[in-house]
């Protein structure tokens, strides 16, 4: 990316809990102003990684620096300079918006006029000025999420860690939340986000795919999609998709079949298998059935990368 020193640098970062390897030799670098996505299913090691980077958990192997500070030895210094928003809702629901902001500002050493100015900034940025005296428990989910984000940014951290920040929020609120992250990143704040939503990952500048503690792929979304040769992902429209699906699964050269409403989405091991597939579908479903290439989605990439990794491991 840029020549600037990385904001986060992990080298062989590992964490074990007894015999269980939660994070397995993970290496990556995050550049300033980047929206860096950490994509993986539950238990992939995303939260453990973020907790190590925030100084909440000591690594058991490898090393990592955040803003040039070592996560093992300089955790206290790191905590002063980063923002963190956990997947669990982390504001006091029995305090008002303003009281929460004042408290969390104080926790970062902001008092008096300094905190007052930042509270105004936070209310404006999250568009919740009108709710300043509302108890947090009475706020809609989307408002709370934005409030939690700006609360983590009161002390102007150059980087904010967001651990599955939009759990349980409706799509419109999620979209607004991500607009906010875009704005912040444009203003220079680095965002390190974990998620298991594909649409959220699509909005990241670069995405790291994590599975079973290992980092399987790391690149921009378009580059990740190019791991498939053109024509590897096709859509099948037919009259009886369920029956067709059973037949397709038996065909050689098919990596993945999934039913999306009336259509089937098929990932081919190689584009040349498309001919066999079209023939089979017409055989099963009649001449009306059609096979057309489509753009691979991030989910296709994700499933493909995991299947490949597990195949290699087996």
């Amino acid at each position, binding site marked *: 990316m840029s020549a600037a020193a990385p904001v986060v640098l992990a080298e062989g970062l590992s964490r074990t809990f007894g015999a269980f390897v939660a994070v397995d030799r993970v290496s990556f670098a995050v550049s300033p102003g980047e929206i860096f996505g950490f994509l993986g299913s539950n238990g992939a090691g995303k939260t453990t990684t973020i907790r190590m980077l925030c*100084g909440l958990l000591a690594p058991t192997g490898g090393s990592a620096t955040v803003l040039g500070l070592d996560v093992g030895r300089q955790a206290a210094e790191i*905590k002063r300079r980063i923002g963190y928003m956990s997947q669990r809702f982390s504001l006091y629901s029995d305090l008002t918006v303003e009281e929460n902001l004042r*408290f969390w500002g104080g926790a970062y050493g902001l008092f008096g006029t300094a905190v007052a100015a930042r509270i105004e900034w936070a209310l404006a940025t999250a568009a919740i000025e009108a709710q300043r005296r509302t*108890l947090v428990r009475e706020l809609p989910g989307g408002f709370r999420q934005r409030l939690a984000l700006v609360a983590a940014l009161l002390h102007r951290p150059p980087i904010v860690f967001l651990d599955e920040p939009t759990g349980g929020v409706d799509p419109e609120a999620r979209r607004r939340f991500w607009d906010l992250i875009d704005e912040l990143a444009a203003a220079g704040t680095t965002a390190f986000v974990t998620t298991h939503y594909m649409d959220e990952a699509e909005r990241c500048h670069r995405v790291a795919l994590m599975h079973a503690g290992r980092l399987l792929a790391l690149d921009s979304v378009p580059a990740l999609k190019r791991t498939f040769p053109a024509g590897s992902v096709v859509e099948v429209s037919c009259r009886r998709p369920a029956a067709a699906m059973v037949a397709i699964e038996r065909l050689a050269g098919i990596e993945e079949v999934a039913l999306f409403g009336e259509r089937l989405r098929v990932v081919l091991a190689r584009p040349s298998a498309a001919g066999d597939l079209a023939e089979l579908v017409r055989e099963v479903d009649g001449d009306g059935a059609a096979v057309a290439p489509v753009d691979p989605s991030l989910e296709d990439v994700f499933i493909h990368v995991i299947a490949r990794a597990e195949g290699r491991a087996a």
Partner: protein
Amino acid sequence: MRTLLNILVKELLQLRRDPKILPILFIAPVFQLIILGYAATTDVRRVELAVCDLDHTAASRELVAGFTRSTYFKRTAAVDAQPALDELIRSGAAKIALTIPAGFAAERSAGRPGSVQVLADGSDAMTGTLGLSYAVGVLQEASAAAGVRPLVDLRPVVLYNPDLISRDYMVPATLSMIIMVMTMMLTAMALVRESEIGTMEQLLVTPLTPGQVIVGKLIPFALVGSVEVLTALPVVLFLFQVPLRGSLPTLLALTAPFMLCTLGLGLLISTMAHTQQQAMMLTAFVFILPQMLLSGFAFPIQNMPELFQFLTYLVPLRYYLVILRGVFLKGVGFAVLWPEALTLLGMGVAILLLARLRFHRRLG
């Protein structure tokens, strides 16, 4: 300092916001005290008395009158034969049975003491023993009135609580209960709540140190505990008329080390419990009940088997009860109670250090 104040303000705001907590904090203790003050009294009045007078003389009637004149006894039955008396005790209709044998008056007029039989129902040990000692008192008085010298002239003198009013002894002790429930349980629950809702992790990713978070949590509840004591004291002093012979500042100063222990235990409990419910159960059954049983609050320590007597030394409440009863009833202060105060201080510091260690490990 400003950091601590920030946490303090937040805690107090949260306390104020909780509509259920305020009555629990300030009304419940007073009720608790009133109920315990009236119920936890071991004084016995109007003991059921059955009489079997086989002498039928003026002297025997005078002796029975001696019993019934006092408010300690209430004659529920008069029978003519010993077996009937036994039956009354067995059925529970009488707790004390008095038999005056034939020839009682004749012995007395011969200048000899004369003997009577008093039976007590030991199945209700408290009433039985107290009834028996009242009976002995009545008989001694009767002997003195008749000019007969008893075999042993026993004149016990009770110091500090001359009327042996159990309320004077029990009510101050209930103060300790209030402190335990309020500081220990509330501290434990408040800390566990932060972990439950996820704010604890958020707190620990800020530059706040675990020590600051802990102290910020303990101070508000120490304040609450102090306010509790001050709310409950008027009930003790004015409603129950328990004398405070020592000084109030001494009492409050000696309460501080005990509160250090209860707050520390609250913190310790919070490192063991995952939910507020668990914290409550742990507090009630693992930390409060055994303390009550092993501190001399409910049962005299002297009567316990040696192992249990040894265990009582590990119970902070034991020392605080000595302090409470010492200050209230004996009017003593630091000069006498410093060993207890020092022990509590040491225990409090040790408990806090242990809890602090566990607190860190739990989140590490």
